[in-house]
């Protein structure tokens, strides 16, 4: 008699969210299992996790030389920088609109939208657009971006509890997806999701529960990210079934240790990324090309 291993499977499913349009369409989510839980026939993981590479709309200050090096000839030109990331094999371009922050250059929503358009035209990848988390400025910036890029189905955020309404309304009007961000708190994440789904369909939402770096409180972020998947996949909570994004590169590289040694820094980013893959992240946002290739090999 042959042995048949008992298989534990779940009834919940992470929602499939499609980002981008036409040739640049990418679908994430759709799994009925927890991350890496595919040894037997537990369920399916139809869309492997995807990786975005970072592009900033303004020249970064204080980056470690080894993380700046691969981009140093393009950091003044977001479109050229995005092209570089595309050549490196990124699935998404993550465009960080740092210059719009009132504490930075306070550039206008129109200027920001122009940069987004340029980057979009320079590559054939779908875009993820992040404001700086500024409660007042982000809605103005993201609404303008939504309008200028109308119909292109970008993923934009972060929408937080203080400003999700204007951002979600703009995304709805111009057909984009939104990142719902809560501060490492699963209860607040659910509340935000409930409120967002009154404006947007659930399959236009991606969750950002925040992701800290290895050694800097990653346990908390891991727990919340993993538990999000438990609640959605195992307990079928429809308000927690959106795919997740782990945006940790800036958290890694702002620390002392990765700035002191190149090999260590790259490994730091890679291990942090691997950790969030295990927590079930559907999109990773990364910075260093070598750390990126390391994770890319694992997911593909």
């Amino acid at each position: 008699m042959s042995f048949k291993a008992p298989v534990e499977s779940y009834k919940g499913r992470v929602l499939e969210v499609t980002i981008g349009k036409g040739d640049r369409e990418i679908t994430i989510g759709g799994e009925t299992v927890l991350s890496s839980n595919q040894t037997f026939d537990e369920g399916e993981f139809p869309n492997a996790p995807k990786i975005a590479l970072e592009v900033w709309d303004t020249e970064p200050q204080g980056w470690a030389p080894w993380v700046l090096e691969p981009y140093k000839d393009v950091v003044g030109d977001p479109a050229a920088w995005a092209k570089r990331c595309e050549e490196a094999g990124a699935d998404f371009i993550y465009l960080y609109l740092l210059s719009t922050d009132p504490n930075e250059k306070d550039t206008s929503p129109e200027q920001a939208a122009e940069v987004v358009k340029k980057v979009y035209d320079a590559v054939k990848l779908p875009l993820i657009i992040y404001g700086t988390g500024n409660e007042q400025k982000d809605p103005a910036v993201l609404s303008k971006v939504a309008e200028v890029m109308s119909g292109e189905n970008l993923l934009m955020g972060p929408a937080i509890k203080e400003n999700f309404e204007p951002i979600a309304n703009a995304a709805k009007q111009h057909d984009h997806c939104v990142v719902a961000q809560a501060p490492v708190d699963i209860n607040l994440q659910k509340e935000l999701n409930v409120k967002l789904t009154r404006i947007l369909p659930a399959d236009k939402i991606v969750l950002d529960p925040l992701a800290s770096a290895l050694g800097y409180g990653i346990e908390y972020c891991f727990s919340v990210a993993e538990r999000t998947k438990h609640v959605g996949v195992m307990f079928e909570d429809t308000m927690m079934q959106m795919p997740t994004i782990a945006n940790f590169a800036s958290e890694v590289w702002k620390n002392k240790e990765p700035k002191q040694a190149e090999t260590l820094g790259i490994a730091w980013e890679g291990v942090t990324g691997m950790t969030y893959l295990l927590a079930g992240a559907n999109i990773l946002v990364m910075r260093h090309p070598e750390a990126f290739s390391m994770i890319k090999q694992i997911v593909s």
Partner: protein
Amino acid sequence: MLLIGENIHIISKVVSEAVADRNEKVLQQMAKEQADMGMDYIDLNVGPARKDPEVMGWLVQVVQEAVDTHLALDSTNPYAVEAGLKVAKWPPLINSSSGKQESKERMLPLATKYDCEVIVSVLNDQGIPADAEARAESIMDTVAYGNELGIDNERMWIDPILLPVSVSQQGVVACLEFTQMLPDLLPGVKSTIGLSNISNGVPEELRGILNRTYMVMLDRHGMHSAIVDAEDAELRDLARGKMPEIVELVHKVMDGEDVDINSLPPKERDYAKTVKVLMGEILYSHTWLET
């Protein structure tokens, strides 16, 4: 279930001002109101009262002049509690001692000295125990310590320490499990809980339904008493058996019986949804009644 009115609490601005000004009338009025609302005990919370432990003695005398209701002397400071015990006309309930070494050595012996009953919490020097089993382990030690001091199980009111549902939903479930285990664990002990704590941090208008639902759930598992918001009329009605249909519904949902929640009238629906959350079946969010 016995109700302990929590409204004379030093965190309340009215109370802290009245205590600071030694305004007897305000506090006597609050005590009378709680007595009229049928509270079995009135809790007198003076906080740690480090600078002025004698304040409890004053407060006890003031309240005793106005009402005959039993009193619970609420402070972590044994000097304050003893100041109240010295002047109490009849033995009050000490609120509270815990498994912390200092509390065992200084608070618990007051129950022997003044021959009164005492709330004993599961808190210990390591903090609040994580789950029902850890709570059990902690309380066994402390109750054994109390027994050695000559305090019978019957004189100890066990408090499982309830955290807000928005902070620790697992803790809410653990307190239910613990309450269920308690009669087998320590036959004869009584029990109590800081009920309103479950809804701390929750929008004001949503606090009552959490408090009330959880009270009915605890009552079912044999909870002896609860420290409650005396002003919640619906909570009092529930505790006094005036809303049997709601109690029955809560029990049904607890038992996992097939209840078509969405076909219930609004009030019943809210209770049923709240049970699901407090059983840990549905992830808590402030929007739990809306989904």
